[in-house]
């Protein structure tokens, strides 16, 4: 398991490096069209061929990694901050605030992820930022529920009860005692959620509701897949293969981190 987690971290690192270096290493402008050279088969010049507009697929993959990873990190970061805040407040104050916030989170959880993403896109419109917000809205309840659960059990611990009895302020208890002790499940959930975020964001783009053409994003690139699958199959295969590899890596890394950071979880590891 540990080897798989290391390999996954390496894969994520390589893809992230390729994404960061895209402007320097991409052989072509990802938006530049060469209609005279469309549907080109893989060659030394175009390792993954060209698409229907003659754009270099490898360059689009590199720049697409920036968009896909950018949306994933931005959305999970946003969901992490909001969800953790909601979870901590719910656990600390309890009562009506807890009940109201958790019912709201339940409703968001009761909505299938892709449907919630579509609902947010309906309200905000499409585009890179709105896709990230849509995925963040979908991921927030996961963090809120998780953090609330962890915080409730940490608040019962003797050292926290003692701190509160000594008159420690809410901020001091939350940031000094509860949050540091709840970090392990938060780190694990964030890693696992990154994979889900990539799947949902690229799913929205695939449907034409997320990142819009001509910008390269792996899901958006796949939406052309049905046209490309006959002429240049590799152009349809490559974005999906990268997506699968990245999602799989985040999943394995999340599992590995859980084992590494909290060995007790190993026994409860179900899915």
């Amino acid at each position, binding site marked *: 398991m540990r080897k798989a987690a290391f390999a996954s971290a390496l894969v994520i690192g390589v893809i992230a490096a390729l994404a960061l270096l895209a402007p320097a290493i991409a052989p072509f402008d990802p938006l530049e069209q060469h209609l005279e050279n469309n549907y080109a088969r893989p060659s030394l010049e175009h390792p993954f061929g060209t698409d229907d507009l003659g754009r270099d697929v490898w360059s689009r993959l590199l720049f697409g990694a920036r968009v896909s990873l950018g949306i994933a990190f931005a959305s999970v970061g946003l969901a992490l901050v909001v969800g953790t805040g909601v979870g901590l407040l719910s656990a600390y104050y309890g009562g009506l605030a807890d009940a109201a916030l958790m*019912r*709201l989170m*339940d*409703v968001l959880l*009761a*909505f*299938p*992820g*892709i*449907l919630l993403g*579509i*609902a947010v*896109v*309906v*309200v905000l419109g499409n585009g890179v930022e709105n896709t990230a917000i849509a995925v963040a809205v979908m991921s927030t309840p996961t963090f809120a529920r998780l953090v609330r659960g962890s915080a409730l059990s940490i608040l019962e611990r003797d050292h926290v009860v003692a701190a509160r009895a000594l008159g420690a302020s809410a901020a001091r208890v939350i940031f000094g005692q509860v949050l540091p002790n709840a970090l392990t499940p938060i780190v694990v959930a964030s890693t696992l959620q990154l*994979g889900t975020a990539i*799947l949902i964001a*690229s*799913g929205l783009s*695939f*449907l*034409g*509701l997320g990142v819009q053409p001509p910008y390269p994003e792996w*899901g958006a690139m*796949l939406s052309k*897949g*049905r046209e490309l*699958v*006959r002429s240049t*199959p590799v152009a*349809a*295969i490559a*974005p*999906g*293969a990268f*997506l*699968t590899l990245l*999602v*799989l890596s985040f*999943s*394995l890394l999340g599992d590995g981190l859980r084992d590494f950071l909290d060995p007790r979880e190993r026994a409860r*590891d*179900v*899915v």
Partner: protein
Amino acid sequence: MLRYLARRLLEALLALLFTSVLVFSLIHLIPGDPARLVAGLEAGPEVVERIRSDLGLDRPLPIQYGSFLGGALRGELGTSIRTGLPVLREILDRFPYTLGIALGAIVLAVVTGIGTGIFAAMRHNRVGDALTMVAALLAVSTPSYWLGLMLMLLFSLSLGLLPSIGIASPAHYVLPILTLGAQSGGIISRMTRAAMLDVLGQDFLRAARARGETERSVILRHALGNALIPVLSIVGLRFGNLIAGAVLVESVFAIPGVGRLLVDAVLWRDYPMIQGTMLFVAALFILVNAGTDVLYAVVDPRIRGSK
């Protein structure tokens, strides 16, 4: 049991109520005039005004919500801007396709998931176990829309065995069902394996073996029955997800189901259709999940007493 049933039913009703508020709010959260949104950008001012008064958009929000909810309960979900047909009729016309592939996918996922999960558990820490779990993890991580394209490439374009798009014959269902069922199959397989491993270590199995029961009877009669209880909850949850996941698969295979209807409605800004399809799919998801929980409580008495 009755208390549990009542509580679960109440929770489902609450979720449905919140869902209706969310779906109702959609049109009011979009910047701009809701009447203009419903009428469409091409409509003249008199049409916009007529729609405003027809839909009661000039009335206070709580009253608007009341009539939206009342209409939804009577099955009146408005009229599509794009086709001029009643929203519910369009949904019900398309639903059989979505239900067909979702049912096929859940049957496939349950059969392969439970089968491979048991297989892996019986070969714990051996090659068969590792290979099965790698396959399951791949199935979970692969985006359905890409898997669909790859299956299309292999079975339709290369081998010519199956039709690629549309839903004209039973053969057209094969690839969408495989595509939609793969991820759930992977999840159920991992869940079954974990549940079986949990049960296989327990004393009552040792007791059954000590009584001289055959290994087959120990596995099928004692272990599987107990292991399947937690798997059941995941099956129901997956079915709800499959109905929603059909949105993507229907787009890959150009299937005119409810999912495709929703995506087209969003692209065409057909707001009554967006609200109707969202309410329909979300309500179905919530009811299936509630039904699963109740069924779970029927087969596992420990659940009723918990929480």
